[in-house]
Structures are given as C-alpha cells and as structure tokens.
C-alpha cells in the first residue's frame, strides 16, 4: 500500500465504514437471531420429554435425541458462529479504518451459512445425524458451513490487509487466530469423521473430543475475548489495561487450551487423558490472566450499566472465567469420577454458549446495529429487558443443572442407591432449569424483534427511495401524467 492510498483511507469516516458493513451484518445477525430463538425453543421442546416422557412417542422428529442435538447445534452453528463472524467483520473494518473489502462476499457467505444450518437441522430432525458430538451435520451442510466460513475469512483478511495502522491491536490476535482455528479443526474433523473412510474404533471419539474442545473452549474464548477486548476499552474510554498481559493470555490460551478435551475416564491409551488433564491444569493460567486484563480495564470506570452493552459484555467476561474454570474442572481425574456423564457437563456447555459467548455477542450486536443502520434501536427498552432475561435466565438454566449434576454424580457413584433415584434427583432440578430456558428464550425474542424491525424499516426505506427516484425521473420526463393514486403513495 502506498502513501496516497493511505491518506485516502484516512479520510474515510466511521459512518462510511459502518455503512459498508450493513448488508453482510444484517444477513449474519438476522439469521443468527432467528436460529437462536429456534434453537432455544427446540431445547425447551426437547426438555419436555423429561417432564412427560411419552409426549413425542409418535413423533420421531421431536424425540429427545433429535431435538436436543439439533438445538445444541443451532446454538453453536446457528447463533454463536454467524453472530461472531459478523462482529469480527465490523471490528476488522473499524480497526483497519477502511470500508469492508469485498462486501458482497460475506453476504453470499451468510446465506450459504444459513442454508447449511437449515439443511443440517432438518437432517438431524429426520434422523440423518452423523452421530459424532458437535459434528452431527451431514456432509452437505458441513461443506456449506466450511465454504461460508472461508469466504467470510477472505473478506475479513482482506480488510485486515488494507489497514492504515500496521500494528495489530490485541483483538486482532484473538480474532485472527479464531479464523484459522475453526477452519483447521472443523475441516480436520469432517475429513476424518464424516468423510468416506472414517478411522477405526476409538480414534473417532478422540478426534471428536479434540474438535469439541477446540470449538467450545478455544474458539469461543478467542472470539468472545477478542470481541470483549475491543468493546470494553471503547465503552469505558480508556485503553486496554495491559497489552503484555493480554499477549501472555493469548499465547497460553492457544498453546495450552488446545490440548484439553480427552476425558480422564476415556477408554484410550492413558497418555491421552493425562496430557489433557495437564493441559487443563495449565489452561487455568490464560483464563485467570484474561480475566484480570478485563477486570483491570473496567475497574473504577464511571460508566453506568443499566442493561446496556456494557452489562452484557461484563457479564460475558465473568461467565468466561467461571464457566472455563468449571470446564477445566471436568478434566481433573478426581472430579471427573463424580461429574462424568452427569447434567453438570450439560450445564457447563450451556453456560459457555449462552452465558459467555451469547452474552458478549448480544452486547456487541446492540452496540453495532445502531451504528451500522445509522439510527437508534427501535425497542431500546427491549434490549435492556433482554439483558435481565438473558442474565437471570442463563443462571436459572445452568446452576440447577450444575447442582443437580453433582448430586446425580454422587448417587451414581454409590452402587447401593438405585439408578432410578439418581435420575429422579436430576429431574427435580431439570424443572427449575426449564424455567430458566424459557426466560432466555424471551430474551432472544427481544433480540430478534429488534433486528427484524430494523431490517424491515431499512427495506421499506430502500423501497421508498427507489420509488421516489423512479418517480422523479418519470416526472422529469415530459409526457408524464400523474395518476390519481400516486399522490397518496408519495406522501
């Protein structure tokens, strides 16, 4: 890039950059919010099977094994990933101080992505799941997701390449690594497990665990923390507390975090779970370090926080620290003897997805949308309500699962207690947890409503502009006679 270009780029103001992101972001966020609502609703439907076991006895689509799997995938692939990709595109454009490069590519990619999620979900509901946890989407859907991710990465990388300041900001490290992370881990796992010649026996499970950890722990941390490290300093109006500390956290996260994943009780050669347990132990370092950086950045900030984006992101970072520590705890051999195969693990995963990634992404979306659309949120009060519903709902959803899981695990360990009793203990907690799920769903509806109304308003505006432009050109043309109905339409 030469000097003149540089100067030209500098002249671009923020509103122009925001406007360049409008279409791709609307496509990504709109679909993400829709999938979030559908995923949560499907999760509640799945849970109904525990309250009323024969509910879906005649309906294969909604049986627990189908609905729960589809709901989980909708949360991760439907909501978290496209929303995060949208936020990443915007952050890259803003940090580079250039308009989004190749803006049409992410629009196409967003549609491909949503098509992939749709195909995957329908296939799971009709029994076409691959059977590998977090990799249930069939080949067709996986290819679509992979291609869409690559396309968005290309646009993001190109935008990064045209940046005016050469030096990278800490968010860049996290988000850039996140782009590579997904492509490699998702690609590897699909090639090996969903390809034509899957490996024999337990290797399949090992690769599955490796993917799960790299998506649910490392990728979420990279995306979530990268986004939080952009917004927190902006909101409090002071620089990120310590760049050096953030770098330390970043490097330890990618070097240690990626080794976690093999449960201590796995029937595989002992070195695998041992390495994982050690990796989990070391992963405490980045979790604490990144938590400290965020805390130091926001502490003593005199910024009000009444359900705005600041609240979302603060709650998200706190959730990151707590849920990651709980996740790491699952890999401690002593703890895993109790926690293995209980609702505890389900609770931790939901906390990571909703409490950490979901919260940060919602906060980011509410921050970005008004800028990108050039006007205020249509229902700003609903956005606040969204925070309280999300925060309260997630805690009410997750904490009973954690407590219930520990109790269930204790009972499962004691062979004198019948299995039915251990299940019954969990059921009691599941009822509370479903209430929390319902609250989260209401929060998600607030998000969807805001995005939907904004999109419709914008589209109506577009139509109006087009109509008036056409009309003006026609009026300028000589032989135009206004028809009786035109006047009302124009006003």
């Amino acid at each position, binding site marked *: 890039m030469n000097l003149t270009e540089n100067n030209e780029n500098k002249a671009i103001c923020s509103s122009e950059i925001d406007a360049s992101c409008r279409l791709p972001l609307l496509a990504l966020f709109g679909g993400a919010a829709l999938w979030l609502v559908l995923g949560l609703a499907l999760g509640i439907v799945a849970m109904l099977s525990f309250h009323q076991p*024969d509910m879906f006895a*005649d309906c294969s689509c909604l049986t*627990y*094994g189908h609905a729960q799997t589809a709901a989980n995938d909708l949360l991760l692939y439907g909501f978290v990933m496209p929303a995060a990709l949208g936020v990443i595109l915007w952050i890259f454009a803003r940090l580079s101080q250039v308009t989004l490069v190749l803006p049409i590519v992410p629009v196409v990619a967003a549609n491909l992505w949503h098509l992939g999620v749709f195909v995957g979900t329908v296939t799971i509901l009709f029994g076409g*799941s691959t059977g590998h946890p977090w990799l249930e989407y069939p080949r067709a859907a996986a290819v679509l997701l992979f291609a869409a991710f690559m396309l968005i990465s290309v646009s993001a990388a190109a935008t990064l390449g045209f940046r005016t300041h050469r030096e990278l900001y800490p968010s860049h490290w996290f988000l850039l690594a996140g782009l590579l992370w997904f492509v490699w881990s998702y690609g*590897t796992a699909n090639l090996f497990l969903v390809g034509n010649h899957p490996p024999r026996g337990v290797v399949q499970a090992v690769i599955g665990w490796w993917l799960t950890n790299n998506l649910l722990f490392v990728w979420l941390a990279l995306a979530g923390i990268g986004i939080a490290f952009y917004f927190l300093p902006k909101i409090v109006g002071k620089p990120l507390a310590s760049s050096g500390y953030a770098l330390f956290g970043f490097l330890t996260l990618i*070097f240690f975090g*990626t080794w976690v994943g093999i449960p201590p009780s796995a*029937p595989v050669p002992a070195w695998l779970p041992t390495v994982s347990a050690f990796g989990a132990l070391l992963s405490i370092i980045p979790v604490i370090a990144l938590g400290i950086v965020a805390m130091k950045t926001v502490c003593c900030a005199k910024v009000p926080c009444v359900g705005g984006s600041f609240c979302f992101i603060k709650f998200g970072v706190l959730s990151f620290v707590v849920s990651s520590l709980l996740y790491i705890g699952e890999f401690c051999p002593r703890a895993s003897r109790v926690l293995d195969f209980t609702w505890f693990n389900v609770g931790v995963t939901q906390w990571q997805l909703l409490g950490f990634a979901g919260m940060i992404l919602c906060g980011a979306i509410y921050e970005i949308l008004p800028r990108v659309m050039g006007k205020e949120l249509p229902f700003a009060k609903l956005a606040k309500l969204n925070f309280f519903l999300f925060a309260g709902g997630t805690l009410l959803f997750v904490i009973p699962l954690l407590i219930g899981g520990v109790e269930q695990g204790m009972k499962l360990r004691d062979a004198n207690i019948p299995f039915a009793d251990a299940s019954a203990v969990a059921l009691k907690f599941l009822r509370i947890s479903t209430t929390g799920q319902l609250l989260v769903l209401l929060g998600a509806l607030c998000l969807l409503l805001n995005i939907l109304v904004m999109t419709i308003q914008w589209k109506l505006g577009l139509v109006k502009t087009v109509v008036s432009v056409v009309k003006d050109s026609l009026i300028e043309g000589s032989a135009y006679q206004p028809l009786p109905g035109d006047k009302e339409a124009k006003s």
Partner: protein
Amino acid sequence: MKTGFSVFLAAFVALGLSWCGLVYGPLKQLGGAQETTVLQSTDKWPVQRTGDATLGLQVYRANGCAACHTELVHQTGAANVLTLTDIGVHKAADLKDFTTSLLGTVSELTTASNTVVANLAGWNGELPKVIYSGADDTVVSMLGDKFKAVGVKTEARVIATGADIARGWGTRQSVAADYLYDSPVQFGSLRAGPDLANIGVRAPDLNWQLQHLYAPRSLVKNSTMPAFRYLFTVKKIGAQPAPDALVLPKEFSPATGFEVVPTDEARQLAAYLVSLKNNAPLYEAPFTPITAAK
C-alpha cells in the same frame, strides 16, 4: 505480535502441535488396531456384528440414543475374591471357629482378619459365600489351601470393582478394543438412562427389548425413557395375528382388534442392543470368568 503473519504463525504452531498430538498420534497408535484374543481362550474380540445388529447401530445413531445413554463402563480397581462353594461335612459354626483360629495363628492372614470376620458374622451356612474380597492375593491362596486341606471347596477369582460393575452395567471396564467395529463410536455423554455397554447380557431377550422400546413403563416402573412408538405400527389384526406382534399388558395394548408390530428399524435396534456385551476378559481388562475351584 506486530504483524498478521506472526499471529498466524503462533496459532498455526499451537494448533499444529495439538493436531499432531491428539489427532495424528492416536491415528498412528490406534488407527490400525486389530481384533484381540480373549484371555485364556482362542476366541476373538470384539465379535463382528451381523445382519440386523449391524443395521441397528445406525438406528441407534439416527435416533440419538447416545444423548441419554452411555456405552462405557468405568472400573475403579480390582479385587481378589475367595468364595466358599462347598463346606463338605463341616457345620457353619465349626467352620467359623476354624477360620477364626486360622486368622489368629497364620501371620500372613492377620491383615485380612477384620474383613473375614465381618464377612462371616451372621452366616448360617448358605452357599456360595464370599469370605474375602480385597487387594491381597496371598490371603486368597493361603486361605484356599488351608480350607482345601480340611475338605472345604473354595473358588478364587479376580473381579473388577466400581459402582458401574456393582450395578451390573459390566463385568470389567470398557477398553479401546470393544469399539473396534463401531462406526460411529458412540460413547455418549450423559447417563439420563443406564449404561448400555452390557445390556445384551442383562436383557438378552429380543421381545423384552421390543416391548421396552414400545412402552418402557410396562417393564421398568418409573422409567424416564420416552416411548418409541414411532418405531412400531399399530394395525388391524388380519385373519391371523401377526407372529411378531407384541404381547403387551392391558393398559399399554392398543384398542381391541389391533396389534402392535415392530418395524424393521425397531427389530434392528433391538438386535443391536442385544449384541452389546462387555463380558470377555482381555489382556488390558482382566478378570476371572470361570471357576477356579481348589
């Protein structure tokens, strides 16, 4: 971390290392695994599934059974067990006295005396009777020899221990070899329902499995398992009842004149479940399956 390339390089190396360790390494070590031999036998393990059972694995996958069931037995340790199988001409009370005197005089047995005394307390001669279960194998052989000398028959075994084993979910821990022929491998991650690694030994009856799939609560009271009625067809009884129609208790049976017939999928799933066994001693998961009477 000033340039994009350095970030890319760091991420590449970090993920590359774990790829080598957790993907490539296991592929090299386990990817070419072959079937093994059952301990003290020439039988091969695992047994390749055939026919319906092979297809049943796919039904199990398609219906997401692994969302609630695991196929993975844990073991916390192993124990040497000595069981009385025949006390010959002796009386239970005499044998107790004899055992107590042995425990007092033979120095190798003193460590086990508390366990043995506790096991024999309240024993009235019913057989078989476990008299020792613990880590010490010299106790087992010593006691066994002493009993043999007075004409009492015992059985010495090594068994796996742990809550899963005690619940009857398996006879030993699950090992990598068990899953050689599974694709996809479905360990499961939640025990909302019991472990199924050994269900073929616990409930080997196909009809039981079918009825349990159709109406779980007709067989297991308070079961939380959803009924899988969509795997069955309810149809009018023709000239003769279908030979494979389910025999159901009254409150679960369809209207009179109708019968419940399993679909192919249900039959395959049941065949798969019956094929799930965890009862062969292997080199990496040994136990004593057959009696070793002294």
